[in-house]
Each structure stands twice: as C-alpha cells, then as structure tokens.
C-alpha cells in the first residue's frame, strides 16, 4: 500500500515535470544583429527554419556594431546575449580579448556536395571564434535619374569633380574611405595596404580625400545612402551593396552600382563567453553555417555565401524573382577590381586613424 502510494506520487511528479517541460519548450536564444533589410533576410533565410527544426525560439535584437556592449556584459558577468553578428575586425578583437567563445571547427556542417568544411569554405573564412557567414561589399552607387549625361564607371571617377560635379556621400569613418582614396588615385589593389603602412601613403590618402572634402555629405547608418541618392541630396554615394540592391528591386529606384574598386568585407556569428544558453547558441551557429542557410539569406539580400557549395545554390530573389547572381559582390563580372578589407591592418591602426580622421574632418 505504502509502496503503491509512493509510486503514484512519483508518477504524478513525473507527469507534472514532463508537462512543465512541454510548456518550457520556450527554450530560447538571444541573437543580436544589424537590423534593417539584413536582419529581415536572416529571419526569412534561416531563423524560421531553425526554430521549426529545433523548437528553439530566437529573440532578435538590433545593434550598431562595436564591442562596447559585449564587453560591458562579459565584464559585469551579466551576459544576456547569446549570439552576436560581428564584423570580422571586431570579431577577431573580441576573440583575442576573451569576450567570445573559441569554437570547434569540427562541428561545422559538411558542404552541400559532401565536401569537408575546410575545402568548402573560402580560404581564411574559418577563424578562431567562428566561421564567416557572408561577404558584403562597400561600393559606390549613383542615381541614373538624377545624373544625366556621362556616367561614372571607375573608382577614379568618384574623385573626379571636373567630369562629375556634385555632392558625394561617404561614411563618416576612415575605414574603406582611405582605401577608396588610394584606389581613386590610381594605386593598384595589391599595393593599397602596403602603402597605408607608410606615413606617405596615409598622407596621400588624406590628400586625395581633401580634393572632394567640401563636397562630401557624411553618413553613418547603412540606410542613409539610398535615401540621400533618392532625394538627390548627393549625386553619388558609397554604400553597402545589399542596401542599394534592396532599393533597386523593392523600391524600383534607378540606382546603378559601380563595382570597380569595391572593398569586400565579412563577418561571423560569435557566441558570447558566459552566454545564457550556450548549447542553443551553438546549434544556431551550426545551423547558420549550413549551405542551405547561406543560400537562404541570398534569396533576400545580395550578400554572398562564404562556401562554394552554397554559392551553387543561389537562385532568385524571393519577393521579386530577380536573378541574384549578377548582384553578388564576388560574381566575376563585378569582381574585376576588388580589395579585400585587411582587418589585421585595421585592428592595428583603427584607433589611430580614427583620431586622425576626426582631426582632418575638424580642420
């Protein structure tokens, strides 16, 4: 009797526990990303599929880059983010500082064609704290409607005030602009960073920027350049290629991207040291690394995968049916003159260049 009684209680307890477990499938992770059309592309591209497959809910938050918040959370021991979408320079820096978990490359899923990750990924895409998820590019674009007559085609044209008078939009940051300035001054791609390693090279870049300084409108958020081009506030502007693409296909703007001299950049999904749900975060990062996830993002925004087998899966834009391949930064026609952003150089020189850039702006 006693025994039966006890076992019954036991059974009830078990049932309650499993019931509670069923309700608690509210297992969730907090993912922090860049917002706007990019975040939307990720949600549609693979977040939904991830939740459907694993039952783990994704709480999405926006941020504007940088490590300040991550560092504040980790230092205070009160981490409430699980995964953060970082640009490569920040990711490597955060990894060196112990803010992000070192990841195990063996957990990366195999390629769509069965190839091993190390063969499938582009060279250098697998770093200590994560594998790069996509390539995006900083280019310059113009609004064909507002720029009658001759059209710019090269990086040199961006700096040519005589043939193309009018205001330019540029990001308020030395990053990418110094590279643009040197390429616009005729420096070959492979010599840009070697030149920037010298004082004369830096001076040359700033001197080149000086020639257009009075005509530049500076932007900060990625959403600004398409707006400025549409309004006619500027005749051409540097921008992220995905934002221009969105304006082209969704808003039917007659923007044209000049791919010459594009600066290619990348980033990865980092898991915070001390993340509240590390196993969920790991599953998410692994899911995002699947070729199908990468190709899913590429159905919504023109940022290209970092895996060869994912590239093969690229099809058309999900909403408009536009062929995506011609809009990707590393499509051969677009990639005739490409500079790969040297995060190593920038992590060494960013602070110094920022001060110099601010001093130059204020002059």
């Amino acid at each position: 009797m006693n025994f039966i009684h006890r076992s019954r209680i036991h059974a009830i307890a078990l049932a309650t526990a499993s019931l509670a477990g069923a309700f608690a499938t509210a297992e969730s992770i907090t993912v922090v990303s860049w917002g706007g059309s990019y975040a939307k592309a990720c949600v549609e591209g693979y977040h939904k599929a991830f939740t459907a497959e694993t039952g783990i809910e994704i709480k999405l938050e926006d941020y504007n880059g940088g490590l300040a918040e991550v560092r504040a959370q980790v230092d205070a021991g009160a981490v409430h983010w699980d995964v953060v979408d970082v640009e490569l320079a920040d990711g490597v820096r955060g990894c060196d500082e112990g803010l992000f978990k070192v990841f195990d490359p063996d957990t990366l899923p195999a390629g769509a064609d069965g190839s091993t990750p190390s063969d499938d990924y582009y060279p250098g895409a697998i770093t200590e704290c994560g594998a790069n998820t996509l390539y995006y590019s900083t280019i310059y674009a113009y609004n064909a409607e507002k720029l009658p007559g001759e059209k710019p085609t090269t990086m040199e044209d961006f700096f040519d005030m005589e043939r193309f008078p009018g205001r330019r939009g540029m990001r308020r940051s030395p990053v990418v602009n110094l590279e643009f300035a040197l390429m616009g001054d005729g420096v070959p791609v492979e010599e840009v960073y070697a030149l920037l390693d010298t004082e004369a090279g830096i001076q040359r870049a700033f001197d080149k920027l000086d020639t257009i300084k009075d005509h530049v409108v500076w932007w900060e958020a990625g959403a600004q350049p398409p707006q400025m081009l549409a309004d006619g506030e500027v005749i051409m502007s540097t921008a992220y290629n995905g934002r221009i693409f969105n304006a082209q296909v969704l808003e039917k703007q007659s923007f044209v991207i000049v791919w010459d001299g594009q600066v290619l950049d990348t980033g990865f999904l980092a898991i915070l040291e001390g993340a509240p749900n590390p196993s969920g975060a790991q599953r998410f990062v692994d899911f995002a690394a699947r070729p199908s996830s990468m190709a899913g993002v590429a159905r919504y925004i023109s940022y290209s995968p970092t895996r060869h087998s994912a590239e093969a899966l690229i099809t058309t834009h999900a909403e408009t049916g536009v062929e995506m391949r011609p809009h990707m930064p590393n499509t051969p026609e677009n990639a005739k003159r490409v500079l790969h952003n040297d995060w190593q150089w920038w992590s060494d020189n960013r602070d110094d260049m920022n001060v110099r850039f601010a001093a130059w702006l204020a002059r």
Partner: protein
Amino acid sequence: MKVGLSPRLRAAGLTVPLIAFIAVTFIAPLGTLLTRSVYDAEVAEILPRTMAVLADWDTSGTPSEAAYATIAMELLRARDERTLGRAATRINRIESGLRSVVVKTPRRLGRDVGTEPPGAETWRDALVAIDEAWGENATWRAIREAGQPFTSRHFLNAVDLETRADGSIAAMPESRRIYVPLYLRTLWVSLGVTALCLVIGYPIAHAIAHAGSRWSTTLLVLVLVPFWTSLLVRTTAWIVLLQNQGVVNDILVALGIVADDGRLAMIYNMTGTFVAMTHVLLPFMVLPLYSVMRSIPTRHMDAAASLGATPMQAFRRVYWPQTLPGVGAGSLLVFILAIGYYITPALVGGQSGQLISNMIAYHMQTSLNWGLAAALAAILLLAVIGLYVLYDRVVGIDRMRLG
C-alpha cells in the same frame, strides 16, 4: 528618564537615504570615472614578471635576454588565459601596429613551448624572427609605458600633448591635434546657444508673463509641448525641415529667393547644430524667466512711465534689473546643458558641428579607451565647475532664481 537620540540627530537621520542615494548614483561613478583616467593596471596584471624585469632596464636599445624570455612565457600564458587581447589593445594605443605583433607572437611560437626558444639560439632571435618590431626600442618603451598602472598619458592626450622618447612633453603633430580645438568649439557653441536662447526666450517669457490669462496659458502650453516631446523627434523634425530637399529650401526655391541648384546647406553643419540645440534648450531659458517675470508687478512700469521715463528707460532701469535672477538661472541652465550635449550634434552636426561629448562617446563606445574618455570627461567637468565658480564670483549664485 530614558535618554533617546536628540531630535536634531534623528532629523539628520532622515537625510541618510538621500546621502546614500547620492553616494551610490553620483559620487561612486564619478570616483570610478576619475580613477580610470589615471589608473589602469590591466597590463601590469597580465605581464607582471615582464614589468619587473623591465623596471631595471635603462630604456636605451633593447632589454636583456631575460626580458625576451619572460615576455615570451607571459604572452603564451596570456593566450591560454585569453587575456592577450586586452594587453595588446593597451600597448597598441601607445604605439600603433603593436597589437598584431603582440597577438601573433604566441600564435607563431605554437602550443607546446618549453623553456627553450623554439628554432633559435636565443629568445631574442626567436621573437625578432616573428616580427622585427621586437628588435626596436620603441616597442619595448611602449610595453613598459603600458605596464605603468598610474599614468598621466590620458590627461596629456586629452589636451593634445604627448610624452616624447626622451621624457619631455610636447604638442602632438598637427595631423593628430583634435581635442583642444573641440573644447574651444564646444565652449563657443554653448555660449552662442545660450545667447540665442536669451534673445529668443526673453520676449517669449515676457509675453507669457504679461499677456491675459487665456493667452498666457496657451503660450505656456506652446512652450511646454515641445519640452515634453522626445528629443529625438524634435531633432529629426529639424532634419525634415532644413535638409537640402527639405521644406524650408523648397519654400525658398518656390518663392524664387534661391535657385534650385543653389539650395542652402542648413543641416549637417554648424548651422544645424545651432538651430536644433537652441530649439531643444529654449524651454530651459523661458521657464525660469517666466517665473521671475510673473512676480514683477506691472505697476512698476506704470510708475516709471508716470515719473517721465520713456518705455526704453523704464525697461532698462526698472524691468531688466528685476529679471536678472531669471536671466542668470536660465543662462546657467542652458549653458551647462549645452556644454555636455551629445545626441543633437551627433544627428545634425555633420562634420563641422561635432562637440567634445561626441568624442567622449566615441571613446566609450567604439575605441573602448575608457581611460581617455574619463580624462576628457574630467576636463569637461572641471571646466563646468570653473565656470560655475566664476559665475558665483561675478554674479553671485544666491541671486539666481529658478522660480
């Protein structure tokens, strides 16, 4: 009879929560901030033995083999403990380019390193083979400098000075001088905004204080509604109005005052900062002025007129002196708010309208150089206190009235 606490002491006890609150929310953070500007022991903690060895170094040439062996060991350990990046960031601030040298050194040394230098006769050779920077005097000076827990570096940087290799203090090269011009600009903008607020706010306050009660309520609400509206909304509203293709430019073009290709640049520059800041801060001028003006009987002006004063004389000699406490209060309020202003210049200031607080935010959020941010903020704080004291001496703080 039982002797309790004296009533006075008990009354004082009531202020304990307040004092505790101020200590926790104001004095403690301020103290931490000021400490950060002169004290940072991170590198000293990550590379303690290297610092001990370098303490005996005469700072010429490169240090002894012992220093090379010690730093190699400590860099390897820092990599395993994942503190390497923190040390590298701080060393890089002193000498740009050393971040990658510090980070790659243990990576190149590999995993299982014993006490013998791998693939070289000496640790010196091993490190120089990894990067030539290890053979340079400047590298070791930077490491030694970064290892000093107490430093005046941030305060020197904050006023565009640096310590030269020979220990003398000199001005930064011109291409890197930024903070002193920014402080001056901040001061100038704050004074300008205060003056504009006074010129615009004085007549408004006067109108509210002396209009009939119905009008006065309406006018007061018109001042208060923007005051209650989000700062961001008001600032972005100015962008809509003033931008190149904005409402104001459109009207000017439609009226033929400016040509379509000669639209005025009124935003993303100093003009934008001035206009938006003046608008945002105007209520802080109007409200103290209004409360002071309301208490001035209109009879005073009538009396002055009946004694033969012209309206101008009556204003200058009777009305204006009575409003001075309000002018003082409003100006001080606006000025102190303006000097620390951050969001508005960041949004509408463009390249020429940035203020010192934008630089502080940059070092807090982006470069993560909290020491320098703290030094910049401390100088700003000192400047405000200095101006407050000056104001007290010249005008007298007891003459200020907020209402």
